């Protein structure tokens, strides 16, 4: 059967057809649609595949390991910075190994369309000694899912599958398997001691996994996903990984005269790379993301006939484009490229940055906060990750920092420790449960002089309105962490409540200690969706 699927959907369907028993994930662009697809899938429902959102990537990864411990196949999905959050279980899963297959799907976001950095997850794979797959297109992403689970079980290691934005968020027709594979039965791991990373066991595992690397590299050399395509003209050899391979092909509609080595499985098969280097006079390395392969190939010797991002033949940062790849190829070869030119850009076009929705509760929170902070000399507002980060832009210009999930509360605390007052943290409901709770405990334990605003819109808004783990529990969570009721306030952020909310903020800033204000009103996006559903039901 053929289906038009997003890369993310192809991955999800591939996992389901590979006999998946559970997906564990926290929403993050560009990975969100994988879990959403599984949540909507009739097959997943019929089979009871776990698909509820996890509180963060770390809890997701650990739950997946638990499922693997029981012999079943589990998928973990996240965006690239999510891998930082679950780095501890991820790296140590390379030590425990797995029982049921585990695939860790990480969607990188070069060009930072919806992210704060451009980190390349392939480094994590190498670092954790975990085999890494990188599909070039949607069909390969689908097919690779079955291969990755199988390989994970064969090598008793998790597999990291790395995709990038254009792969995750691009549709293509995908040919699906005739029937899904059966799910694994419950099966305790015969290698029980591997799961106990007590130094005595872990040392053995470290030696074993290190020794296993040679086999992984040999498998990559023989992998059907790593293809050496012959070419008559040896003046140039092209090494292309992941979707970089597509851009190379786009430049040669009639086929490349130069040899091409396509890399989609790591560890980097050095034998194949060496063959390309031996056969060709010079090398162009085309990879989406950071110069991961290029750095290995170029080495300390800084070989002059190796070209790519490090010598400026391709742009050092940002996504690859077919145009950038064509320009690089034209620079290094005598091939006669058809260079098509478009129209000159219009000088009258102005940028249109994203903005908070009209009627959004975060707007009222910022309006109130700005009004109150005018009364103080040097207020500082520590922001966080979510729609409300847009509060940095005009008209609000309301926040002074945005670093990572949860950093608003902890940075405000550190600033207060250093003598800052007023120190205000603003964090969304989902970000708070993801990574804010532990920081709030630190603040409460020292009664740090900060005011925390948990702007609760009852959903994970930025990624499209997924369930938020703490909905209806925020007051209880704050109390549980030791906050007194006196400094725990709840309000509905609406223009008509402006006097109430401004007074509340003022009072809590003036209180010398930790306080939490929870402005709570549903996200406009989910509200509209719910109203539509209600109307349809009538």
């Amino acid at each position, binding site marked *: 059967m*053929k289906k*038009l699927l*997003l890369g993310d959907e192809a991955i999800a369907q591939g996992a389901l057809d590979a006999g998946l028993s559970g997906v564990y994930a926290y929403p993050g*662009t*560009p990975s*969100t*649609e994988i879990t959403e697809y599984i949540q909507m899938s009739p097959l997943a429902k019929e089979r009871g595949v776990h698909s509820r959102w996890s509180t963060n990537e770390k809890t997701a990864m650990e739950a997946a390991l638990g499922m693997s411990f029981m012999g079943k196949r589990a998928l973990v999905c996240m965006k690239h910075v999510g891998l930082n959050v679950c780095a501890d279980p991820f790296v140590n899963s390379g030590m425990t190994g797995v029982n049921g297959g585990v695939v860790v799907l990480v969607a990188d976001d070069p060009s930072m*369309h*919806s992210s704060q950095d451009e980190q390349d997850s392939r480094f994590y794979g190498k670092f954790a000694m975990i085999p890494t797959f990188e599909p070039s297109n949607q069909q390969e992403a689908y097919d690779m899912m079955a291969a990755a689970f199988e390989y994970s079980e064969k090598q008793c290691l998790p597999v990291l599958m790395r995709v990038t934005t*254009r*792969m995750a*968020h*691009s*549709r*293509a*027709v995908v040919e699906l398997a005739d029937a899904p594979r059966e799910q694994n039965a419950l099966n305790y791991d015969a290698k029980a001691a591997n799961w106990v990373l007590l130094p005595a066991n872990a040392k053995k595992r470290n030696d074993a996994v290190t020794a296993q690397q040679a086999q992984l590299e040999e498998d990559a050399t023989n992998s059907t996903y790593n293809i050496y395509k012959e070419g008559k003209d040896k003046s140039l050899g092209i090494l292309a990984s992941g*979707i970089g391979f*597509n*851009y*190379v*092909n*786009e430049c040669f*509609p009639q086929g490349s005269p130069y040899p091409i080595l396509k890399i989609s499985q790591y560890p980097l098969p050095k034998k194949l790379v060496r063959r390309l280097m031996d056969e060709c006079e010079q090398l162009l390395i085309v990879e989406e993301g950071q110069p991961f392969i290029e750095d290995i190939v170029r080495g300390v010797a800084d070989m002059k006939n190796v070209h790519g991002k490090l010598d400026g033949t391709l742009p050092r940062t940002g996504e690859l*484009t*077919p*145009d950038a790849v*064509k320009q690089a190829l034209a620079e290094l070869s005598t091939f006669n490229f058809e260079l*098509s*030119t*478009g*129209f*000159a*850009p*219009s000088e*009258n*076009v*102005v*940028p*249109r*940055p*994203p*903005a*908070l*929705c009209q009627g959004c509760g975060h707007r009222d929170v910022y309006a109130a906060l700005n009004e109150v902070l005018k009364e103080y000399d040097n207020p500082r507002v520590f922001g966080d990750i979510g*729609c409300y980060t*847009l509060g940095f832009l*005009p008209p609000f210009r309301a926040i002074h920092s945005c670093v990572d999930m949860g950093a608003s509360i902890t940075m405000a605390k550190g600033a207060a420790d250093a003598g800052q007052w007023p120190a205000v943290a603003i964090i969304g409901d989902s970000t708070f449960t993801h990574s804010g709770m532990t920081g709030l405990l630190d603040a409460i334990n020292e009664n740090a002089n900060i005011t925390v605003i948990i702007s609760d819109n009852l959903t994970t808004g*930025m*990624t*499209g309105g997924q369930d938020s783990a703490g909905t209806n529990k925020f007051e209880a969570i704050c109390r549980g962490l030791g906050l007194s009721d006196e400094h725990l306030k709840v309000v509905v952020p609406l223009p008509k409540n402006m006097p109430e909310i401004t007074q509340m903020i003022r009072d809590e800033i003036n209180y010398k200690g930790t306080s939490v204000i929870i402005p709570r009103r549903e996200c406009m996006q989910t509200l509209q969706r719910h109203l539509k559903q209600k109307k349809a039901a009538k």
Partner: protein
Amino acid sequence: MKTDIILCGVGGQGILSIATIIGEAAMNENLYIKQAEVHGMSQRGGDVQSNLRISSNPIASDLIPKGGADVIISMEPMEALRYLPYLSKNGWIITSSTPFVNIPNYPDIEVIKADLNKLPNVIMLDIEGKAKDAGVPRSANVILLGAAQKALGIEYDKLEDAIRRVFGRKGDAIVEANIKALAIGKEAQK
């Protein structure tokens, strides 16, 4: 057959439903399709675009090279201009004439229209007005699709069939409204 299309507008204007209809028509014809979309932060009122490529031969890149687009379909006039470097010299722009003003420095709309009118192949339509007049106010984007039919190189009937399949489960009234909108767009091509 090969058509490279840029669909653009402002987040929330519904460019992806146009893409869905074209994709459905193309898939039914057994054509190859690649459609790169924008999700995430920019959907909140920012500029959004989708690269849609359909071809009788396999398609390598998800992105359209500069100067390669055969048609730009835009829900907003300034957004149509944003992608000019991607438009082929003999490509078409099919755009709504109604500005979507959600930024303080939106240029004078007459300047934008003048820029558009300087280009060789442009169809600029008051799609919201036409949709309202015809009693199909929610199908303005499909008027744009109808107006792009020739530039897309897809037969009119195939688009109509695709609409029936895409909107089928939403009921006859919605199917008919969209087919009416498609016909209004088709007329505007002449």
